[in-house]
């Protein structure tokens, strides 16, 4: 039942997208076959799809955790930039350390930097009551500009025309799937971060629904006055929730720096932080939903490339239309809820009478 509304929203979006394809003059069935087929093709399709899903799982989780606490974290984008830079910095500066120490250290840097960047708007809200939406958005600008500044003036290899830092030490590299699985091409950047993302989903689930801290966080999100009555410090929960959310967003830096480019590359994020909001929305702020929603968005992104190349008229813009339409339909859930609930009731009554 919980799955029904998101599924209907996705289906409706595909129908609307299909109409667009028809209007442009291509065959919608063929286009969708190409889109989904190519995204799931072994090994490149699958490999890239899972690689693209990884950051979206992290940001989707980040937004979900904040949302469960009744907070809107629009700042995942800034948090992941700060975290990615901190990861690269750690991988460069402590490059002499052995991998067994350096990799965990870089991961701590990613999570820590993201958590601090998330906790700041949390603190501002807890202390002064300023709204987290405004502050997280503002922190995004600061994060992007700060990372650019340090890259440009302090950590760029002299003479390098590209806005990127020096490479991190090879001791900090995360293994790619190709290294662990013979026959899987090593050029595909799918790496251990994907496993980390799945583990993070499990950890978030356990945290939210099995621990006292998760209970307090959800209680605050559900009814802050009742949480206060139950002896829960609402202020502390706000800071904590934003820090956890920021830390999860920061894990994007692990995938990007340790698993993929092995350096900080300016402007690397393909709006992962903002797409994370849509992923959380579609995934119903549940870790399992987040995985499914992240996979869907990754399929659309990956599948958009061959659609662009192999259809007569359709460009990858149609994929963006699809993404936007899905979000619209999910957001306008009430639009389906009434007719669907009525239909279900009608069916039930029909069954009773028949």
């Amino acid at each position: 039942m919980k799955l029904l509304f998101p599924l209907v929203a996705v289906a409706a979006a595909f129908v609307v997208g299909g109409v667009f394809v028809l209007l442009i003059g291509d065959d919608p069935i063929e286009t969708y076959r190409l889109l989904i087929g190519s995204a799931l093709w072994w090994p490149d399709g699958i490999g890239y799809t899972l690689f693209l899903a990884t950051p979206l799982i992290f940001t989707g989780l980040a937004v979900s955790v904040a949302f469960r606490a009744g907070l809107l974290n629009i700042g995942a984008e800034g948090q992941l930039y700060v975290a990615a830079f901190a990861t690269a910095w750690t991988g460069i500066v402590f490059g002499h350390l052995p991998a067994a120490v350096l990799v965990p250290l870089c991961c701590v840097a990613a999570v820590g930097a993201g958590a601090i960047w998330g906790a700041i708007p949390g603190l501002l809200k807890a202390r002064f009551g300023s709204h987290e939406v405004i502050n997280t958005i503002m922190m995004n600008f600061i994060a992007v500009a700060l990372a650019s500044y340090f890259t440009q003036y302090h950590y760029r290899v002299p003479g390098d025309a590209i806005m990127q830092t020096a490479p991190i030490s090879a001791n900090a590299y995360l293994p790619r799937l190709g290294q662990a699985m013979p026959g899987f091409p090593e050029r595909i950047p799918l790496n251990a971060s994907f496993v980390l993302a799945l583990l993070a989903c499990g950890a978030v689930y356990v945290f939210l629904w099995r621990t006292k801290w998760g209970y307090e966080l959800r209680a605050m999100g559900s009814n802050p006055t009742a949480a206060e009555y139950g002896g829960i410090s609402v202020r502390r929960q706000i800071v904590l929730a934003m820090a956890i959310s920021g830390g999860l967003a920061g894990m994007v830096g692990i995938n990007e720096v340790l698993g993929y480019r092995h350096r900080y590359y300016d402007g690397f994020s393909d709006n992962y932080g903002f797409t994370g909001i849509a992923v959380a929305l579609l995934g119903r702020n549940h870790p399992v939903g987040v995985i499914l929603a992240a996979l869907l968005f990754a399929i659309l992104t990956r599948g958009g490339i061959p659609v662009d190349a192999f259809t007569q008229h359709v460009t990858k813009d149609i994929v963006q239309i699809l993404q936007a339409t899905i979000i619209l339909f999910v957001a306008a859930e009430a639009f389906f809820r009434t007719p669907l609930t009525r239909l279900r009731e009608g069916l039930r009554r029909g069954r009773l009478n028949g």
Partner: protein
Amino acid sequence: MLELRNITKRFGGVLANDHINITVEPGTIHAIVGENGAGKSTAMRVAYGFYSADSGEILIDGQARAINRPHDAIALGVGMVHQHFMLVDTMSVAENIVLGAESGTPFALDLDAAAARIRSLSDEFTLSVDPHALVEQLSVGQQQRVELLKALYRNARLLILDEPTAVLTPREVDEFFAILRGMRAQGKTIIIITHKLAEVLAISDAVTVMRDGKVVGRVNTQDTSAAELARLMVGRDVLLRVEKAVAKPGAVALKVTNLSVGSGVKVGSGFSRTSRILDGVSFDVRAGEIVGIAGVEGNGQRELIEAIAGLVDPARISGDVTFEGQSLAGLDARARRERGIAHIPEDRHRRGLLLEFTLDENVILGVHYRPPVTSGVFIDDKEVRRRTVDILQRFDVRPPDPELPARALSGGNQQKLMIGREFELRPRLLLVAQPTRGVDIGAIEFIHRKLVALRDEGCAVLLVSAELDEVMSLSDRLLVIHKGRIAGEVDPAVAKAGDIGLLMTGGH
């Protein structure tokens, strides 16, 4: 005057009215009683055209009529006053009354003629309402009379009143009933929906009792008693009086000294007088006694309870609160709960429950972080379930399904759940506000018995209630609060409701 014949109304799968028959004779006051959800309001909304019935007939003056919208009912002389007033605060009485029934031409609203007519209606029914007064400046009782005037202005011969006394003080209720009797003498017919049995006996000529969407009885008021009506409403015998032994007070548990709560943060040594919601209150509560606080709502009761529970910003508080000889200053809500202070808040939706959470999750609110519910970091689901099942069973919460969201329970069952949770703390001080608000008669009896039983186990109980009957029958000592001050203490065993009512309103 009005007859409902075989009216059936269904909402989704719920049968709100099941072939009900109600007959109201002209020139009488007819009470319709029943518990929450019995279908009283639905039946009357059908009669007023808010809902259309799935089947059945409405007869006015013996003729079958189609009433599909309130407009039809008004044209036939039926008026309705809702529990929540439908008035525009910033407009005058006359403007409110003519709203929707304006006379004159579309370009010239003849308010003077309307005001004159309102004045004569007001005199005729001794309502003493000034047509030119602004609604926001009127007391609740006066606003209710404006609602009556609205119906009379539209020539209503039958007035349907939905829980009209819920918002009134005891004195206002008396005045209101005098007005109703006057209207009856002038030939009006009145239907009053209520669940307060004393009022039914005081005002009505005949009573229709509803339960679970059906009419279960119709009696003449003079031939019945509160006990019989309660039995019809609930379907079993109900003990209306609280049975309790004489209290055996022990040591002082709670001592409140000169406690004030300001509306904002205090500046320097104190805050200005006008900003005090609670103003220099002192009293104590001993172990094994129930101390009641009577008062019209909004006179500082909530601040009093929340200040003791640790839910008010300490910067807003002056004065001292000690529990078992130790000051509570500097302790947050959690620490106070750990000391043995339980709290049943007045507003279960806002304060007391997590409506989207399951009963399991609600039962552990406040103890979720400590053994036996949580040892270390992980919540022990088995222990939680054991606790929930135990509370649901002992406090008769229905349906007893621990995985339901709290929202799915009726008000009475939500209240029992919350009371069970707080009793489970084995408190030595219980702060309880409006324990039976919106709760059915059967559950009220149950809650009252539980509170007395807790007292008898030696717990100190501080009880706040807007229901005068409730504080009078439960309390061993009774304080009356007015404008944030203790206006007096009375002995609930001998005091008269009228005298307490006088204290509640500051002597006017």
